[in-house]
């Protein structure tokens, strides 16, 4: 008897659905195992072929763990807020909720046909008010907590207020913004507005000034990857760096823990390194240089990891957006500096970091005093210094830092070597090794000895102190868009005031158009009565990563209306044992989720300090392109084996009309009008196509729709066969992988 694939597959898929075969409950008699896929954004194009291959791997593993006697949690859902649905809404007027719903339906159909063992009773959608209630709740918790560095965790802001009222803030060690020291008496005499302004500097979710990519034409802030060469990727409108008051999450408070806890995770070394670099811990010193602009003198603070090289600091550099630029620009240099900062404003930080060839900069006209040599050194401005790292100003030591070196060479600034015998004729000597010279009291020390000795001297001179610095920034949490979670915040006499849990979810209001208002407010400014108790409600919405930061917790207890996740469910399922997804999330979602989890851990809502124990990044799926060969100047196509006899052009052909490298000639004629009367020269009655492995893209006609897998027999097995076949091809071709 022949195996009737289609009939048997349909009947067992129905069996699984009807019997809820893969529905799981907490079961203390069995060990748990939690297998999670990064949930998809339901785009209009349907499932991408890269999705199912990751899902197939996690499904095989889930089924294996079930056979091994584990109680397996294997859920699926949708990361449903996002820009494409909003853009579509702007173009067509179709409500993003509708578009999203339709897309989700299609995704579900596609997923079902592959035969995954998901527990669909636990499905979540981030745009569902019952779901985003808990995203808003977490934000409120962040708003009402501060990070105590002494206890190393988040604590209630009410407790902080009590401390302020009793003893002021001198004894408080907090991860916070700029605050001045005040006494209890001073605190108690402050107005509510003044107190709230100070507390805002302490909250973990806070409103603060930050530099953003502002696109006036689109009326919104853009993420770095939405900007290219000073223009918005969408529409090509000018984008500039602008200071704006935005909601932010104090992710930086958790930098040390995010770094240290990486050690315990079963993640690939490359992924851990990406996070380590992103967090970017450096140990060094903060120190003050005296600067003067001809009329006034200031103390300019800088951060350096190489205090041992102060003797070689021959100039200083400010970031173009630094507040020092205005203070230190002299009358003579004003025009040149203004022109330069205008140029720098057009570039995103990422572009500036990536810029290594072009050297740009301008002299402020001011000078600083090197505290070790007492020499007068010029203060410059250049885009290679970033405002957010350290203090946005650096001491430049061209002999021992490659970017300073390039800059000094370009602008002909002095370069003083500080290591005996180092060769700096072609490039700087960046290694932290050798014996110090030209360095006063440090002469004769090794670099390793000189670093702490120099910091000690800095502290002794009273011009600075030891300091650990992180590259990790706070996350900007406001978007001037419609299709996201509204903030449960209203403005009472101008003061940002939180709603309460009982007011949640705060549902997204209806608007007539999904565009900014005429006066430049976000789309929620169009909503009627967007108020709370008569007060105006926040008009920006949360970013894409808000909803995906804690979804793995919600799956543990998805229908709970009292809590994000119950204690019982969380104590049983604990954390994700295996997480599968792409590396593109290495420094976004995977940092935010870990931060979110640690915050909730501090508050006692979750029992594990890390969310994802083991993580595997599935590789990229490349396309296998097919080619036909057209004889130049004709409409004649010759089969692969004959192409060397003619002068031909290689043309990509849609892989969907090629099977086993044999071209379907009728389909080819129908494919494009210009081929309707094409002539063919065949081999043994067939047209053989050439092929190559390339990036999967529409322009190469090699994009495969996953429906294709669904039509295959035993889709899961097929998916994993694909890997094996693909690998043997790859090996024989020596194709470069990532």
């Amino acid at each position, binding site marked *: *008897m*022949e*195996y009737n*694939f289609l009939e*048997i*597959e349909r009947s*067992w898929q129905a*069996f*699984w659905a009807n*019997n809820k*075969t*893969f529905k799981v409950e907490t079961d203390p008699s069995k060990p748990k195992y939690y297998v999670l896929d990064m949930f998809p954004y339901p785009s209009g194009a349907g499932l991408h*072929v890269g999705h199912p291959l990751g899902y197939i*791997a996690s499904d*095989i*593993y889930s*089924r*294996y763990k*079930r*056979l*091994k*006697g584990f109680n397996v949690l294997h859920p699926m859902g949708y990361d449903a807020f996002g820009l494409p649905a909003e853009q579509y809404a702007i173009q067509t007027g179709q409500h993003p909720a509708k578009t999203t719903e339709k897309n989700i339906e299609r995704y579900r159909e596609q997923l079902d046909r592959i*035969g995954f*063992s998901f527990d669909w009773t636990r499905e979540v959608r981030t745009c569902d008010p019952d779901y985003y209630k808990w995203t808003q709740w977490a934000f409120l918790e962040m708003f009402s907590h501060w990070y105590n560095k002494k206890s190393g965790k988040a604590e209630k802001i009410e407790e902080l207020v009590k401390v302020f009222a009793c003893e002021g803030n001198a004894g408080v060690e907090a991860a916070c913004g700029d605050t001045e020291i005040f006494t209890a008496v001073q605190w108690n005499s402050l107005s509510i507005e003044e107190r709230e302004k100070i507390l805002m500097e302490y909250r973990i979710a806070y409103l603060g000034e930050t530099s953003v990519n502002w696109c006036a034409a689109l009326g919104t802030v853009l993420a770095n990857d939405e900007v290219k060469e000073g223009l918005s990727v969408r529409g090509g409108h000018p984008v500039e760096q602008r200071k704006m008051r935005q909601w932010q999450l104090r992710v930086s408070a958790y930098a040390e823990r995010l770094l240290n806890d990486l050690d315990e995770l*079963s*993640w*690939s*070394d490359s992924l851990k390194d990406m996070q380590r670099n992103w967090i970017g811990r450096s140990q060094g010193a903060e120190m003050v240089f005296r600067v003067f602009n001809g009329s006034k003198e200031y103390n300019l603070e800088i951060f350096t990891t190489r205090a041992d090289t102060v003797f070689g600091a021959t100039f200083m550099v400010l970031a173009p957006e630094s507040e020092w630029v205005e203070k230190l620009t002299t009358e003579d240099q004003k025009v040149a500096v203004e022109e330069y900062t205008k140029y720098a404003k057009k570039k995103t930080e990422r572009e500036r970091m990536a810029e290594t060839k072009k050297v740009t900069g301008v002299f402020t006209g001011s000078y600083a005093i090197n505290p070790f040599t007492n020499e007068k050194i010029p203060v410059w401005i250049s885009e290679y210094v970033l405002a957010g790292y350290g203090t946005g100003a650096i001491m430049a030591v061209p002999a021992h830092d490659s970017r300073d070196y390039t800059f000094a060479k370009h602008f002909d600034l002095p370069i003083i070597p500080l290591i005996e015998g180092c060769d700096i004729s072609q490039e700087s000597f960046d290694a932290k090794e050798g014996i110090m010279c030209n360095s006063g009291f440090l002469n004769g020390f090794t670099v390793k000895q000189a670093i702490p000795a120099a910091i000690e001297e800095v502290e002794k001179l009273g011009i600075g102190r030891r300091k650990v610095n992180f590259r990790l920034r706070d996350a900007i949490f406001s978007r001037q868009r419609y299709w996201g979670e509204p903030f449960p915040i209203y403005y009472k006499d101008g003061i940002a005031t939180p709603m309460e849990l009982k007011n949640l979810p705060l549902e997204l209001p209806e608007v007539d158009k999904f565009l900014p208002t005429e006066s430049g407010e976000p789309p929620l400014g169009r909503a009627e009565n967007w108020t709370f108790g008569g007060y105006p409600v926040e008009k920006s919405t949360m970013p894409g990563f808000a909803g995906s930061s804690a979804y793995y917790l919600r799956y543990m207890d998805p229908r709970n209306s009292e809590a994000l996740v119950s204690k019982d469910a969380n104590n049983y399922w604990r954390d994700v044992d295996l997480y599968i997804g792409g590396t593109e999330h290495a420094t976004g979602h995977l940092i935010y989720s870990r931060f979110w989890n640690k915050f909730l851990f501090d508050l006692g809502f979750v029992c594990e300090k890390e969310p994802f124990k083991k993580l*595997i*990044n*599935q*590789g990229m*799926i*490349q*396309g*296998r392109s097919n080619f036909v060969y057209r004889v130049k100047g004709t409409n004649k196509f010759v089969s692969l084996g004959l192409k060397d006899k003619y002068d031909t052009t290689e043309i990509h052909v849609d*892989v969907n009309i090629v099977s086993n*490298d044999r071209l379907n000639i009728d389909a080819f004629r129908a494919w494009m009008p210009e081929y309707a009367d094409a002539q063919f020269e065949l081999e043994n009655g067939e047209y053989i196509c050439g092929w190559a*492995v390339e990036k*999967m893209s529409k322009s190469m006609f090699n994009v*495969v729709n996953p429906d*294709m897998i669904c039509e*295959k*027999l*035993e889709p*899961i*097995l*097929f998916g*994993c*066969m*694909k*890997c*094996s*076949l*693909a*690998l043997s*091809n*790859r090996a024989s071709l020596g*194709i470069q*992988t990532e």
Partner: protein
Amino acid sequence: MFLGPLEQSKPWDTNGIDGVHRFLKRFWRLFFNKDTFEVSNEQATPAELKILHRLIKKVQEDIENFSFNTSVSAFMIALNELYELNCNKKAILEPMVILISAFAPHIAEELWSRLGNPGSVSFAAFPEYVEKFTIEDSFEYPVSFNGKLRFKLTLSILLNAKEIEAAVLADENTQKYLGAGSIKKVIVVPKKIINIVC
């Protein structure tokens, strides 16, 4: 950490679907006698158990290492070997259905149910790997005369050098190649070679 094929980039390849198709059809046919579902309740032989337990070991290791593609080729090899032995024994096929259910759940459910099991194969127990079934119990010795290979002789690995010598001398092939000559010395290296000096 182990870098499995899952983590590598790979091209999407629509060719080769026939291989999957053929494999599944052949697997299915093992359970049928023409149009009738028929599996034997006979005890499995050591050779059959060896095929099964090698496969259990391989599949388990591969899944733990996220190297699923190599599991699939192991299934294909095992299937070929079972065909050679004409094996349709439940004692072998039923555990194989469980093994394959992680990769090809639909066909596994159908066969599992036809084997008379209630419910889904998803909650069956993963077959336990028993090492003794996979240990080689015999060795195929190359038998040489004055260093020249003449024939091969399969003997139990439990035999010592003396017993091996006795066995090789008693073999009719030895008489054939010895002819009229006489044996000067028999060199035996257990689990390696036998050399007859004459």
